[in-house]
Structure formats: structure tokens, C-alpha cells
């Protein structure tokens, strides 16, 4: 494989598309598949054949708006005509859709989503909903693997790292560590057999960005890993995916097989001396495995317990060798940066947070789904302009970001612009990108208890502050939500938060008090209402006598 061959594949794929007058894309991500978008595709294919129209029905990945699924996107190829999106499509709508091609769009199926896509900027998701995730040719037609060829043939590993560093890209898994710096550390570390790992253990409840990216555009992640491996000098790669994501695993397996067959992974990649192979490792349902040292232990076939750092994985990681670990979304950003340049990337976003971020917008919001916005946009824009606000005439209360490690941000802070630092200063964090909207019917103490229950169950038990601290904090929150809490409990809770935060071994424990701390900061009156007045302002918690409690 070389640049010319890549060009040939791209033009062949384009010629193939030119044969058709119309392209009908059907979303076949997990969200839409659960609403039988496969049946929609089959009936569209049949209707297209019956009508005699030259129409290509394509399976694609996530189109973003899961709430309006199954989604269908009509792309008139190579014309200036606007795209048409349909929502809530049923298989019985197929004939009508095919008949309407070339004419007026069907108003009945228009999900009224103009506001949803306005304000979004797709970099990571640029191919999602436009290409068949299992067809390498379609990825290549959309400039796929161009960045890899460019990096291998025109750039030295040092130049690749310099480009990534100059782009200002920071880790998208939540920590926000500068990616270029991490790559540089691994590149400089001494080791015979360096490794590159893709962290797809998306354990945050309420987040599905990584699943969507892996399902919709797996080659983009593979390309990012290849460029990273070239830059740091690794030969062995692993993608760690949750076993709960069977479709992502299936698409990734197919993509890897295809990439290997075409010589993008394996030995002598793209006619150079660069060797790299990627294997998939399945997670087995342990949230702590999102922590890098625990993830490494899991790949090694052990219990996923973290170990103290330093040494960091960049120095001593998988099998004791220098290891680069990045999140799925981080790798998905690599190819566009190499292709379009660091300057293009750093022109988006804020001073210290560059580029875009994918969020999973869910909860009590009209349009739930996957959104990608430039950093620096305000939370209000995401929740109200893109998400359409809170449904059923209810009042907005808070937005939760960062999963069990993050916090709840109240209405006063909605004009906060999204960046790593701004979210931390508001008592939350970027996290991997879950964004859950809560309305007045959610009790914030109950939410804090929910997250504490999560952290308590998921604590691996290795260090005492996390193992015992989360249990004690959960016990106190349970007392408060059953109206048995006292002022003394609240003081103890605050003390425990401080202790667990500062003495736990890994990120899980250190950040487990965050949901409590942020709700205490903004919604202390709700805690006090439970304790002093024995009532739950949201009407969620009920008084249970001490003895009856489980």
C-alpha cells in the first residue's frame, strides 16, 4: 500500500458512488438498531429495487440523535442539494421515502432538528452516519489512511509528536493530560517492545461516545493508533473494549481483519519497515479498569486492581515495557490533525482546551443523543440550543458531567464555557463526556447516593480509604435520604469526602467524593431539608424508620 494505491481505492469508491443517483443512509448504531433499523434498511432496499430508481441503501454508524431513531439520511451524492434527515422511520415508510427521492422531502417524517445540528462541529464524528463502518474503501474515500501514509513517508516520528504537541490536543478520557507530552515520554523511554493501548473501557454510566465512535468509524481509531505506534516506536497494540458493547466489538473485529488484509497493519506497513499489530481485549465489567494501571493488569490476565504511580505506564506498563494509553476519542482526533495540520486543530476551542469534544447528552432533555461541539461553547448552548431544553414543562435543575468522578452543575453556572479547567473550577470535570440533564423531579441527595453506591460497588478493595470510605459515605447518604440523617452525619460526610479524596490510591477513589462535594456546594439546602425538616424537596426520598432500613 502506498499513496498512489490509496488514491486508486478512493477514486474507485467514488466511481462506485457516482453510479447511483441517490444515497439513502440508515443508522445502524446500537440505539437505532434497538428500534429495528435493520428492518428499515431491508425494506428500503426492497423498495428501491421495486421502484427502479438508482438508489444505494447504506448501513452507517450513529447519526447522533438517538431519541429520534431509527434515523435515515438522504444524501444526494455530489450535488449541492441539502441533506435530508428523517426520524422515527418505520419499515412501512420505505416506499414513500423512495418515491420522494428527487422531489419534496416528506414533512411528516422530518424530526425538526435544525437546532440540533446547528452549533455542532464534527471532527471525530465527521464520517459517522456517512460511511459503512465495515467498508474500508468508504473510509479511504473520505480521506482515510491518508494521514498514516503521510506520517510514514513524509514525517519522522519526532515530527509526528511535535505536530500532535503543537495541536494542543489533550486526553479525551477525562484527565486532560497533553497528548503530545505523553507520546514524547513513551518515545524517549527505553524498552525493547513498546505497546500502544486504546482505552475503550467506557465505564461511566451515562456515556456512550466511545461505543458510537467504535461502531461508526472503527478505521479512524485504528489509524490513530498506527500513527501513535509509529511515533513512539511500538510494535504491539491492544484495544480494550467493554464486553457490554457487542456491536462495537464485531465492527472493530471486521475492521481489523480488513486493515490487516490490505496491509495497513501487520509487517512492513505501507511498504516501509514499520511493523505493528493490534489485538482486541474484552473487558469484563469492572469500572476500575478504566484506570490505566488497572487496565494493564486486566490485559495481563489478572484482577483489575491499580498500582501506585510512578512508575507511570509510559515508563513501565504492559509486560513491564513502556506503554502508551490513550482514549478512543483521543486516537480518533489524530488522523485529522496529521492530515490538516496542528494549526487547523488549535484554531478551534479555547486557550488551553483545543479542538472539539463529543458529549453524550441524555437524561431529562428533549433531544438525547451524541453531540460534538467545539470547546468553549457554553453548557446552556448544549443543553438548551442543541438539546432543546427540558421536556414536559419541567424546570431545569442541574447538569451532571464527568460520570461518577464528576459533579452536578446548577443553573447559575450554565453560561460556563466548556473546557477542562472551567469544569474543574465549577467542581465537576470533563470526564469522558457523559452529560446528564436533571430536572426538578430529581433529588440531588439521591443522585449523590446513586453515584456513591456505584463507587462503593466498583471499588476494587485494594486501598482502605476507598474501600471503607465509600461504604461509610454511602451509609450516611442512605441515612439522609431515609430522613434519619443528623447534622453530625453531615459533618462526618464532609470530613470523609476530604479524607477519601486525598488518600485513595487511584482516580476512582480520589474522585468518588466529587458528586457529594458538588451537590453539597450547590444544593446544600436539599441536604438540610432532609435532615432538619425531614422532607425531600423533589419528592423522591421517603422516610423509613431506622429499624426497617435495609
Amino acid at each position: 500500500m502506498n499513496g498512489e494505491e490509496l488514491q486508486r481505492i478512493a477514486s474507485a469508491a467514488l466511481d462506485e458512488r457516482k453510479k447511483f443517483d441517490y444515497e439513502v443512509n440508515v443508522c445502524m448504531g446500537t440505539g437505532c438498531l434497538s428500534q429495528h433499523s435493520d428492518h428499515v434498511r431491508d425494506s428500503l432496499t426492497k423498495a428501491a429495487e421495486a421502484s427502479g430508481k438508482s438508489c444505494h441503501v447504506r448501513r452507517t454508524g450513529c447519526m447522533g440523535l438517538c431519541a429520534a431513531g431509527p434515523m435515515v439520511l438522504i444524501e444526494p451524492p455530489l450535488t449541492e442539494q441539502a441533506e435530508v434527515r428523517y426520524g422515527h422511520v418505520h419499515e412501512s415508510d420505505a416506499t414513500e421515502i423512495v418515491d420522494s427521492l428527487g422531489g419534496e422531502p416528506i414533512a411528516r417524517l422530518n424530526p425538526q432538528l435544525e437546532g440540533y445540528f446547528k452549533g455542532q462541529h464534527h471532527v471525530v464524528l465527521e464520517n459517522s452516519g456517512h460511511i459503512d463502518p465495515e467498508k474500508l474503501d468508504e473510509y479511504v474515500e473520505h480521506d482515510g489512511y491518508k494521514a498514516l501514509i503521510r506520517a510514514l513517508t513524509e514525517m519522522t516520528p519526532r515530527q509526528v509528536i511535535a505536530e500532535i504537541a503543537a495541536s494542543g490536543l489533550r486526553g479525551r478520557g477525562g484527565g486532560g493530560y497533553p497528548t503530545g507530552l505523553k507520546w514524547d515520554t513513551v518515545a524517549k523511554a527505553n524498552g525493547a517492545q513498546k505497546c500502544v493501548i486504546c482505552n475503550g473501557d467506557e465505564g461511566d454510566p451515562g456515556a456512550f461516545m466511545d461505543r458510537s465512535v467504535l461502531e461508526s468509524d472503527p478505521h479512524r481509531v485504528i489509524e490513530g493508533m498506527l500513527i501513535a505506534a509509529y511515533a513512539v516506536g511500538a510494535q504491539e497494540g491492544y484495544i480494550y473494549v467493554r464486553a457490554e458493547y457487542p456491536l462495537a466489538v464485531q465492527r472493530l473485529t471486521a475492521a481489523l481483519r480488513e486493515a490487516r488484509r490490505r496491509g495497513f497493519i501487520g509487517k512492513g506497513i505501507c511498504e516501509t519497515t514499520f511493523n505493528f499489530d493490534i489485538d482486541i481485549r474484552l473487558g469484563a465489567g469492572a469500572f476500575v479498569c478504566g484506570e490505566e494501571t488497572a487496565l494493564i493488569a486486566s490485559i495481563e490476565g489478572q484482577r483489575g486492581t491499580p498500582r501506585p504511580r510512578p512508575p507511570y505506564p509510559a515508563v513501565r506498563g504492559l509486560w513491564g515495557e513502556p506503554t502508551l494509553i490513550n482514549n478512543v476519542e483521543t486516537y480518533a482526533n489524530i488522523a485529522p490533525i496529521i492530515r490538516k495540520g496542528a494549526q487547523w486543530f488549535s484554531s478551534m476551542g479555547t486557550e488551553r482546551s483545543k479542538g472539539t469534544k463529543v458529549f453524550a447528552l441524555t437524561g431529562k432533555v428533549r433531544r438525547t443523543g451524541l453531540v460534538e461541539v467545539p470547546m468553549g461553547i457554553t453548557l446552556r448552548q448544549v443543553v438548551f440550543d442543541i438539546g432543546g431544553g427540558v421536556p414536559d414543562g419541567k424546570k431545569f435543575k442541574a447538569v451532571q458531567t464527568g460520570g461518577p468522578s464528576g459533579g452536578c452543575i446548577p443553573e447559575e453556572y450554565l453560561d460556563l464555557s466548556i473546557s477542562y479547567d472551567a469544569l474543574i473550577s465549577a467542581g465537576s470535570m470533563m470526564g469522558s463526556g457523559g452529560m446528564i440533564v436533571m430536572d426538578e423531579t430529581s433529588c440531588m441527595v439521591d443522585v449523590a447516593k446513586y453515584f456513591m453506591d456505584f463507587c462503593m460497588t466498583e471499588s476494587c478493595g485494594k486501598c482502605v480509604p476507598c474501600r471503607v470510605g465509600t461504604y461509610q459515605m454511602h451509609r450516611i447518604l442512605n441515612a439522609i435520604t431515609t430522613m434519619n440523617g443528623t447534622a453530625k452525619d453531615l459533618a462526618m460526610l464532609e470530613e470523609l469526602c476530604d479524607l477519601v479524596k486525598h488518600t485513595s490510591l487511584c482516580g476512582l477513589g480520589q474522585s468518588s467524593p466529587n458528586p457529594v462535594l458538588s451537590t453539597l456546594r450547590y444544593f446544600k439546602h436539599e441536604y438540610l431539608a432532609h435532615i432538619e425538616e425531614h422532607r425531600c424537596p423533589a419528592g423522591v426520598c421517603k422516610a423509613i424508620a431506622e429499624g426497617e432500613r435495609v
Partner: protein
Amino acid sequence: MAMYTTHPAAPSQDKRWKLVDATMRRTGKTSRGLIETLHKVQEAFGYIDEEALRYVAMSLRVPLSRAYGVVTFYHFFTLKPPGKHTCVICLGTACYIKGADKLIAEAEKLLNVKAGQTTPNGEVSLVTARCVGACGRAPVALFDGELSGQIEVPQLLEQLQGWSAQ
């Protein structure tokens, strides 16, 4: 340690052990392949019983205690056979905010088991999941692996009653 020098015989003539053996060979028959192999056992048999665990541990030369530690550490692995049907209710944040706790309470009441248990007649297992990543369709449940979104109590109970009645 003579017993570790040769590969132990599979627990039975069941052809599914061939799949397990293939996975062990692919991962180099070392402790590195432990989790991969356990995934394969569970995929093939539905659960991991003591016999299977002993066989895998011995084949990969891993102490049984360590293999047991790994199996019990990860939520995904189960040591008990699942029911004929499985209902997984997602307890992710988005599902919780939209009332998944009520779904679980109703299902527990109907089946008369706690989440994580199987009905005494072995028909239905009620399981909770941390997050299945279909938050845009919250609350969600998986009926025998098939995902249903925006699920409501009557719909859930109807499905469970249908299974129990069989």
C-alpha cells in the same frame, strides 16, 4: 509439578471445549490468556462452573485461587447457570434518572426474586447492568440480549409474564 507439564484432558467430550482450547492456544497457553479464555468458556457454556475453572487454571498453569479471584472480581463472569431467559435492566445514570429503579422494583415484585437471581424454576434471570451505552434511549432493558429502549413498567411486566407463563 508433574501435573502441570502436560495439558490436562478436557472435562468432557463436549465439542465446545475445542473452542476453549483454541482460545488458549491462540493466547500462547499462558496466564496472559486467562481472561480471554474465561470469556470463551462463558460464551460457550453460559457460565463458568468449578470444573471449567479447574480445567482452565490447570491448562494455563495458573493457581486455582488466582483464577477464582479473577472470575469473582469481574462482574461479567458468572459461576451460576443463567435462567432460560434473561432480563437485564440498565442502571446507568440516564436510566436511573428516568426511573430504572422503579422498573427493577416492579420486576422483583413480579418474579419474586432479587436482582441478580434466577427464579426457582430456572425460567428467568433478573440482572442489572451498570450501563449498556444506549443512554439516548433510556431507560433500557435487554430481553435475551435484545435491547429495548424507552421502556415502561407495563411493557416490562408483559414481557416477563410472557416468559413465566411458558
